[in-house]
């Protein structure tokens, strides 16, 4: 799981203006495993992308590598 979190963190760091503020937390909830991506609020748009396209791409890669059922949530660092 930490491999996935590290990979996701790397993928996100490469596409934002504030890579140092990217943090991925790995949570286990009743709904299963979740990778929570924290970014600077100014980078939220970049990570989500037009129509959610970039967030979808991130989810697709994580599913491909880690198997289905892993949630990827994007949140800003204020939360």
């Amino acid at each position, binding site marked *: 799981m930490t491999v996935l979190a590290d*990979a996701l963190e790397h993928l996100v760091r490469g*596409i934002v203006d504030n890579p140092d503020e990217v943090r991925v937390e790995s949570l286990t909830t009743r709904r299963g495993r979740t990778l929570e991506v924290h970014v600077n609020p100014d980078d939220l748009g*970049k990570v989500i992308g037009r129509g959610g396209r*970039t967030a979808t*791409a*991130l989810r*697709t890669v994580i599913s*491909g*590598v880690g198997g289905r059922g892993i949630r990827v949530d994007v949140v800003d660092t204020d939360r």
Partner: protein
Amino acid sequence: MSDTVQEAGQDEQSVAAGGAEQAADQDSGSMARSEADLVREGDIAGDYLERLLDLLDYDGDIDLDVESGRAVVSVDGGKDLEKLVGSQGEVLEAVQELTRLAVQQETGVRSRLMLDIAGWRANRRNELSDLGRRTAEKVASTGKTQRLRPMSPFERKVVHDAVATVSGVTSEGEGEPPSRRVIVYRVG
């Protein structure tokens, strides 16, 4: 092969611009990439992907090239790489999308680089090319219009190119993505 590479991306419109690209205003940051720019795109993409492979502990060699005015990045190696392709190539498209964004983040310019992993695009290209040619030959002899299954922009482009090599038939797209498909019909 280089012809099919040309339109492999999602952005059919920008590719359709073709020669006009050369004349595009460089300051607008839209098009007209020099060979050096494309080599740099490949380098940035290579670094991004190499780090990804390292973190996942996947074996892979990364090959960089420039073809038909775009950077081409190929990753080949162990069986693990199939996970970065996906059963329908959907993971590959996602990795390509993210890699383009990573390049754009560094250069400030939208990238049209093409990524292939484990030879997936190359294999698909051959299969689809065969399908396009066989379908065109069937339509040429029977006169019956054929509708192919829905395909991605990359897949449709390869099929159109293959149909174009057979005389007496033509092809066009029908429907809206993601159910857009190629139809082949007899002309003349």
